[in-house]
């Protein structure tokens, strides 16, 4: 990661004893003298060892429930050789000294694996040096354990706290020269540690963004046009202002250009037009809103309707595709050759919403040209940038406190709610908390893009896949897809099939789209792994066997941008073994399905066992997950929790859809966009294949395979292929 390549280690003594070692952004003067002045300079990641031996480590990434807060400190603590119970974790606010602060894309593990261990190892090295000087013995005779340096020969030992002041004066090793542990000596990495906030969560301590209060704070609701790009023309503001508890009511216009195609994040206007109501309590603001009457200019998209979109996609599918994303060999020649079996079909998937359980909210206080913000965001840097643009104040005048968020899933990559709070606070000249209703959240999300995939493939007489064509109909303008609504030309099975054609056409869209946990993969896995299943059945082959054969036809391992087929075969074989694939006799109406998917550097294969009753109710009995995320699973308990959650999340997605009517979103709450419940949750068995690769993340890659694995099981049990989501469109539901 770039930020770390430009960093170096520096150590300093702390007033009152103790020692601080940190990773600092490179500036030439300091690089030459790692102990030189400039006390104002602060490390991006640091370890502080107090005289009492307590070790404090910063967590710089925002926490929205992906359980990464422990993970980076675990890497440091293991190399430092301290006991986990002596480690304290401190959440950082947004500050440039921390470099990139970001949560998403399963990036935390791969980006931090080396630098975090190096910090811990360097500190340990300096503590050993301090002990060896104190005792006048060679460093090579000193060992460490549980926060102590030990000289075995003489039976002496000193705890880190006692050594910390002296350690601060020892030579600081260069980052690259730090000696790291042999993985077999890990005592914390690979051992479950509990969430640092768990106690606060179970006692109801106010740690979430929605819990923030600031003296003199007012509460606001913000009504936007149900149609994207619409704006208010007039509203009964005087009547609203006269209501009990209401302090202000006003219209907000914005930077948004109605109807303009916008590629988020960079062009995100941040602040959409609307009407703000500010009151003494949130309940008063929300009650007043029920009396609000707004005349909207709905702009260009007031007639948008899901049924029209589907009709239009159908017409487009009958015409040649607008453009080609990838072409290998000659698919048409194979389709026309006559001695192949051709399978042709279409998969249709809807827009869906993020709907994290904590509704969007933000507390902002604008005063004398400066802004202070408390909120949960996965992209605090983007947030600060957009807010600075919206308010017209320099970024340096904005302080952003990172508060725990009740779920992210990609929704809090976008910072619209922060812009609203900032604007409203500036307008009314008081601290303001903006809190959305759940209905606001469903109506104004950055939805996972829907789409249509028209697929055609050919099998030769040995049942081998020899040609694959995909016409993807998505959304966008010209050559540009809507944000995160694109299709990657390297998508599997490209390069595993000699004749491969991937084409696309786009339709215009007046709706914001965005990244949802495992962006694109969360639904392309369903499309491609369902179709591959159809091909396995068409070839009269076992679905695991067919996939293994397909994977062995791939390019050599290490080919840039392509998944490593060996690793995928590893997890596929493991999940088949663990689930007893093809080896168990199953009760009536019961069947198994399999799928695999590569995303965010992670390799996952999953098997679902389902019982489907004649009324099309699906009982998911069990799910087996096999993942390869490298040589170490850093925090196994958290990994299992996240992986099981990913399966549950994927199952929920099979039930969800966002549709449009008169330009607005139809679904308003969880009853219309469901989440799986406890009784519908199967038992989920998780296995990891520890391969000789650097550790990578798992917040996302564990999710995609469950959708196709489950639908493939339904096919195996019923003979009915699910080609349209949500599954309720074909009459299925979960028992």
């Amino acid at each position: 990661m770039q930020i770390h390549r430009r960093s170096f280690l520096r150590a300093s003594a702390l007033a009152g004893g103790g020692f601080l070692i940190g990773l600092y952004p490179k500036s030439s003067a300091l690089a030459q003298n790692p102990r030189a002045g400039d006390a104002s300079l602060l490390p991006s990641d640091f370890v502080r060892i107090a005289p009492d031996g307590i070790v404090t480590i910063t967590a710089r990434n925002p926490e929205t429930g992906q359980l990464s807060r422990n993970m980076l400190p675990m890497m440091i603590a293991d190399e430092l050789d301290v006991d986990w119970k002596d480690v304290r974790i401190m959440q950082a606010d947004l500050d440039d000294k921390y470099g990139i602060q970001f949560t998403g894309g399963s990036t935390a593990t791969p980006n931090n694996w080396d630098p975090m261990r190096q910090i811990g190892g360097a500190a340990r090295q300096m503590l050993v040096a301090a002990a060896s000087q104190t005792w006048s013995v060679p460093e090579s005779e000193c060992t460490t354990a549980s926060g102590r340096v030990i000289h075995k020969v003489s039976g002496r030992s000193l705890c880190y706290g006692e050594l910390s002041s002296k350690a601060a004066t020892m030579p600081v090793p260069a980052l690259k020269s730090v000696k790291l542990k042999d993985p077999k000596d890990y005592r914390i990495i690979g051992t479950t540690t509990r969430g640092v906030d768990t106690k606060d969560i179970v006692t109801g301590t106010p740690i979430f963004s929605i819990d923030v209060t600031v003296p003199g704070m007012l509460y606001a609701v913000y009504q936007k046009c149900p149609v994207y790009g619409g704006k208010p023309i007039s509203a009964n503001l005087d009547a609203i202002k006269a209501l009990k508890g209401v302090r202000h009511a006003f219209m907000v216009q914005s930077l948004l250009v109605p109807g303009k195609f916008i590629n988020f994040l960079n062009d995100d206007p941040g602040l959409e037009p609307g009407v703000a109501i500010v009151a003494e309590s949130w309940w008063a603001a929300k009650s007043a809103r029920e009396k609000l009457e707004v005349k909207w200019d709905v702009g260009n998209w007031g007639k948008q309707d899901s049924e029209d979109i589907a009709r239009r996609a159908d017409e487009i599918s009958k015409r040649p595709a607008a453009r080609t994303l990838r072409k290998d060999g000659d698919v048409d020649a194979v389709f026309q050759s006559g001695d192949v079996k051709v399978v042709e079909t279409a998969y249709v998937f809807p827009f869906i919403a993020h709907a994290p359980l904590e509704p969007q909210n933000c507390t902002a206080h604008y005063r004398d040209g400066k802004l202070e913000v408390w909120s949960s965001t996965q992209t605090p840097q983007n947030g600060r940038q957009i807010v600075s643009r919206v308010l017209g104040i320099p970024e340096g005048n904005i302080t952003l406190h990172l508060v725990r968020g009740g779920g992210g899933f990609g929704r809090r990559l976008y910072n619209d709610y922060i812009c609203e709070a900032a604007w409203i606070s500036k307008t009314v000249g008081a601290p303001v908390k903006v809190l959305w209703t759940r209905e606001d959240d469903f109506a104004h999300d950055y939805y996972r893009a829907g789409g249509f995939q028209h697929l055609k493939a050919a099998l030769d007489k040995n049942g081998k896949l020899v040609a694959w064509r995909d016409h993807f109909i998505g959304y966008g303008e010209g050559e540009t897809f809507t944000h995160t609504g694109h299709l990657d030309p390297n998508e599997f099975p490209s390069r595993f099939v000699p004749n491969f054609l991937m084409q696309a056409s786009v339709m215009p869209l007046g709706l914001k789209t965005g990244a949802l946990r495992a962006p694109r993969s969360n639904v392309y896995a369903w499309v491609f792994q369902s179709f591959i299943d159809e091909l396995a059945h068409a070839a009269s082959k076992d679905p695991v066997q067919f996939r293994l054969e397909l994977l062995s036809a791939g390019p050599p391992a290490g080919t840039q941008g392509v998944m490593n087929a060996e690793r995928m075969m590893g997890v596929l074989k493991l999940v088949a073994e663990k689930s007893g694939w093809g080896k168990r006799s199953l009760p009536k109406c019961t069947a198994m399905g399999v799928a695999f998917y590569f995303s965010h550097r992670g390799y996952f294969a999953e098997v679902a066992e389902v019982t489907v009753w004649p009324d099309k109710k699906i009982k998911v009995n069990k799910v087996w997950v096999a993942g390869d995320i490298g040589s170490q699973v850093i925090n196994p308990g958290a990994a299992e929790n996240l992986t099981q959650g990913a399966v549950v999340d994927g199952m929920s997605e099979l039930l969800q859809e966002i549709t449009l009517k008169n330009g607005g979103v139809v679904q308003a709450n969880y009853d219309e966009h469901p989440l799986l419940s406890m009784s519908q949750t199967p038992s989920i068995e998780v296995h990891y294949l520890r391969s000789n690769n650097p550790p990578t993340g798992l917040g996302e890659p564990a999710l995609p395979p469950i959708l196709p694995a489950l639908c493939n099981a339904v096919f195996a049990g019923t003979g009915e292929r699910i080609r349209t989501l949500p599954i309720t469109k074909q009459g299925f539901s979960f028992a």
Partner: protein
Amino acid sequence: MINLTINGKHHQFDGDPDMPVLWLLRDELNLKGTKFGCGAGLCGACTVLVNGEPTRACVTSASDAANASITTIEGLSRDGSHPLQVAWEELDVPQCGYCQAGQLMSASALLAKNPDPSDEDIDTAMDGNLCRCGTYIRIRAAIHKAAQLGKSKPGSLATVPAGKDGY
């Protein structure tokens, strides 16, 4: 004027009688543990006990709760010593954590009545409490664990702190 007992402590409220108990707790009494998820009785994030019954505070008005005794997550135990809180911590149930106060309150009502529930009993009692992060497997395991802990500590599964000043 509405009289309420919250976590064993008496309160009087003279604001909007239509205000849901959720906002009364959160914004008037500064008890932030009870969470807002859907505002429509659909998710369970706002679950509190009203006279021992699990109740969605977002759709229960202050006037509906007049003279009732309400227990919130803060009243389950402040120090995390209720067997459910202990079990939740031990199994490290939460992901984002946002649903968990509501989950704990529904679970506490279940255990108060049925100190040794089966999987089915748990599913039935908990089905209205959604977890967007999908921690259901651990929630179920933690309820079983709490039931065990409760056996060894008689009286510990009670949900209203008896005879001590509330919060």
